[in-house]
């Protein structure tokens, strides 16, 4: 089984090397004449104001939390789908209960307005 996975490490190394070479090529051949104006944040020609990294909206955080929960659900579903035929009705019912409980969670988030984006 390790034989099936070793090629993935090989392509990871090859891909990393190609990406690194591309970046280094640009650094090698490109000119380098930095000025304070060039290094200022680009804001369409307007003089930059305020900090570049402001705190983001809690919305994004909430989306990430919802994603974790439903990602676990999706992983279970995919993994069960591969064996669904062998598992038969028992497996189907077990998964149905699991999905219904999580659908309650989904509907709860929906009704609470967690899926709205204002």
């Amino acid at each position, binding site marked *: 089984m390790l034989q099936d996975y070793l090629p993935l490490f*090989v*392509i*990871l190394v090859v891909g990393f090397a190609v*990406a690194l070479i*591309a970046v280094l090529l640009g650094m090698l051949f*490109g000119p380098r004449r930095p000025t304070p104006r060039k*290094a*200022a*944040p680009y804001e369409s020609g307007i003089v930059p104001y305020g900090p570049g990294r402001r705190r983001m909206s809690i919305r994004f955080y909430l989306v*990430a939390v919802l994603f974790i929960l439903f990602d676990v659900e999706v992983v279970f579903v995919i993994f069960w789908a591969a064996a669904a035929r062998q598992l038969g009705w028992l497996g189907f019912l077990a998964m149905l209960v699991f999905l219904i409980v999580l659908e309650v969670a989904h509907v709860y988030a929906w009704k609470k307005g967690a899926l709205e984006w204002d």
Partner: protein
Amino acid sequence: MDAGLFWEWVIKSLIIVLMLTAGFAYATLYERRVIARIQVRIGPNRAGPFGLLQPVADGIKLIFKEELTPAGADKVLFFLAPIITVLPSLVITAVVPWGDTVVIGGRVIRLYLTDINVGILYILAVASISVYGIVLAGWASNNKYALLGGLRSTAQMISYELALGLSFVGPILLAGSLSLMDIINAQKHLWFVVLQPAAFLLYFLASLAEVNRAPFDMPEAEQELTAGYHAEYSGMKFALFFMAEYIKMIAVAMIGASLFLGGFMGPFVDRFPWLGPVYLFLKVAVWLFVMIWLRATLPRIRYDRLMQLGWKVMFPLGLLNAVVTAFVVVLVGG
């Protein structure tokens, strides 16, 4: 472990990575020419015959461009972000077969890098990792528009990843395996797009959102975000973001073709295994054409609508499709 096998892997990896890079170069030309035709223009046709050398000219230009690092940037992450972005797009197709086996010089060569028993989960996992480069690029740039673009992009990608994962469930249920080779072999007689039209549609839309293509190209809305997460990037580092986007398009087309359109399967592929890569290439070319066509036709979707579509329509539909398909599969098979 014999050394021949190791070098076979290295050569195949190089072929995949270089083919994807070449594919990226010509996908940009393909897109520019097709969009030009749709808009009744001609498109780039000066560099070489039919403009075929245009990508080369673009590449050389980008290599000789000055690269800027913004003053407030996190230098390490600013350097790493383009590499982290492009790497997942290069390795994601490692589990997608290009064909069956061929014999070269008495050695049986499989026309794919590897076929792992959790291939589809691998694809989903690598897709979820590709979020990092974008969020880090936005954060490291110290530019409020880049940060907002990166955040929007991340939230969009993780939301549609759920629908993407659920769209895989249909083909998995029908094939009873997570390996892409098994799924393609199960489509020998009938493509899964016929049996799973809903899953196909879900996959198509979710994959558009996943690779930030029109009409879901919110993170790069130039009118409001000046370009999005790569606003501060120039030269080859910018080229890597560009490369990641187009390679992801190709990867999405390859994966979609394998899951729903029979992958490398086609007439006479049993007798002439070399036809496999040709069929796959043709399917990918058609898929890319549709993506480009959509970009030329559809306006961009507003961000709140985009998120609502993902969470309120596509995710429940994906679940419904999975349950109904499972019911039928268990009914027929059990």
